[in-house]
């Protein structure tokens, strides 16, 4: 087997807010089809790194590469078009849109729909809309959400909203999926379901996944490799078993033994 190619590489990333170095010389990479976990105590800079990857913050220095493209300067919508989709820690669905419309909205960004044809609602335009609608429902069907297609997404229970957010991210046809604390606020059973869902999504859509999470159990059980941040610095990187035994990680989470 040849060496696996890197899907995303982050090199020497720096970002300061005023006098505070939120992210300090962070480098890591994700191989294709890998499931990488990014962990760290509160305030470690996980979300900041995340926001730089998805285009909301500009790095002071360093590069972020998706395969060969440098995406540092991309705006969030361009980052998405380049092939990175994300979900949010606090769910951000379009509550006043229906479930299927949420997916449709994401899916239509990958299509070119014209102005004139939509103004006149030509036959071909209506056909395109119909096709998009059908494809959205099909995607929902894979996750058995299709019976809720016409429901307003704000009416969905919490677990299903999380699921829908992942489906919506998938509708943009990403190569890399970033999940920001998907298990936040979930009970044990829901977390188990989420674990299966992440595995399923990764296999089915041939994805690379970056997982940011607090739930250690979840991280340790599904991630292939883990990167640990603390106070903006990468303190460890390795297999789950290595991370568990790493003294600096234990110190970061639990403090030094006196």
């Amino acid at each position, binding site marked *: 087997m040849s060496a696996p190619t890197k899907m995303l590489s982050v090199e020497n990333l720096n970002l300061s807010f005023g006098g505070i170095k939120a992210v300090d010389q962070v480098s890591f990479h994700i191989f294709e089809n890998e499931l990488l976990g990014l962990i760290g105590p509160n305030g470690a800079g996980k979300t900041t790194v995340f926001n730089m990857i998805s285009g909301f913050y500009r790095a002071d220095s360093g590069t972020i590469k998706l395969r060969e493209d440098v995406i540092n300067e991309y705006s969030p919508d361009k980052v998405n078009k380049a092939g990175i989709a994300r979900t949010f820690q606090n769910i951000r669905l379009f509550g006043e849109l229906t479930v299927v419309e949420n997916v449709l909205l994401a899916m239509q*960004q990958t299509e070119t729909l014209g102005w004139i044809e939509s103004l006149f609602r030509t036959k071909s335009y209506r056909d395109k809309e119909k096709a998009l609608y059908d494809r959205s429902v099909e995607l929902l069907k894979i996750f058995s959400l299709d019976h809720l297609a016409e429901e307003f997404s704000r009416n969905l229970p919490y677990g299903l909203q999380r699921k829908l957010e992942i489906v*919506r991210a998938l509708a943009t046809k990403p190569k890399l999926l970033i999940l920001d604390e998907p298990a936040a606020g979930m009970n044990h059973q829901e977390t188990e379901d989420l674990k299966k869902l992440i595995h399923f999504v990764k296999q089915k859509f041939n994805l690379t996944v970056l997982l940011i999470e607090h739930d250690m159990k979840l991280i340790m059980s599904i991630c292939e490799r883990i990167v640990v941040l603390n106070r903006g610095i990468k303190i460890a990187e390795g297999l789950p078993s290595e991370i568990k035994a790493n003294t600096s990680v234990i110190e970061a989470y639990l403090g030094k033994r006196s």
Partner: protein
Amino acid sequence: MNFVAKNKLLFFFISFVAVGVICQFALNSYIQALVVSFMINAIMALSLNFITGVANQFSLGQAGFMALGAYTSAVLTKVFLADQWYFIPLTALAGAVVATVAGYLVALPSFKLRGDYLAIVTMGFAEIVRVLFLNWNFVGGPRGYNGVVKWPEFLISYGFTGLALFLTFMVLYHLKISWFGRNLWALNEDEIAAEVMGTPIAKNKRFAFLFSAFFAGLGGALYGHHLGYFSPASFGFLMSVQILIFAVLGGLGSMSGSILAAGILTALPEILRSLPTGGLDIRMIVFPILLILLMILRPQGLLGRKELF
């Protein structure tokens, strides 16, 4: 997928013609003028509803776009086209285009602003336009623009204004239910999420502004030719607010709601005016109370986001 079906169009057309004929032969010129006013108000309400209701970009500058449309069309007919009424459709379009250009200029710096801040910028824009015309003697300055060419007949005025309203409605309604409208709904609800889904939000806001400004300019041009006189004071802050009231009452996001509300709010003051109150003008007391009651009982507006059909 709903779209305006052919038989509905036919129904609207027949009732439109019927109303026109009734107004022409059975009603006096006061009612006739009121009907045209209603249609102009509806155009203005629609133009604002698109930008504020669908795209959630709070604009208090519709009067500015309106003024640009009105002055452009009036000057063009007077200076270049020898006050011939049959050029009005053309000059009205020119007025709309000028307003669109202004809309682009307003949208350029505005795409990073939200809510109240955007409202202040658009309000400032409308004030700039007003003061500009106030100081321009060629168009009458503060005395206003006199002798703007009017439509010769009620039915002609009715027909063209109706056509303009129809165009406005069809374009904005079709945009609302299309991919573009869906993009706007998304950024209406959550800009960050919309952006992450790959929606180019700055571009979408800009286009929403262009459409809104175009139809506001069109409405303004028709307003000028309907009344035959206007002054910078006609396009003050109150005008923007009045348009906002139409859109909010009808339901932000509901295109047919805007037309309905424009109808109600054009007729209501006139109905109240004719009430026997023993010489007391209670109109300005009753009208606001009715509005307050409506907003308490139905804060989402008459139709919310839904359409009548």
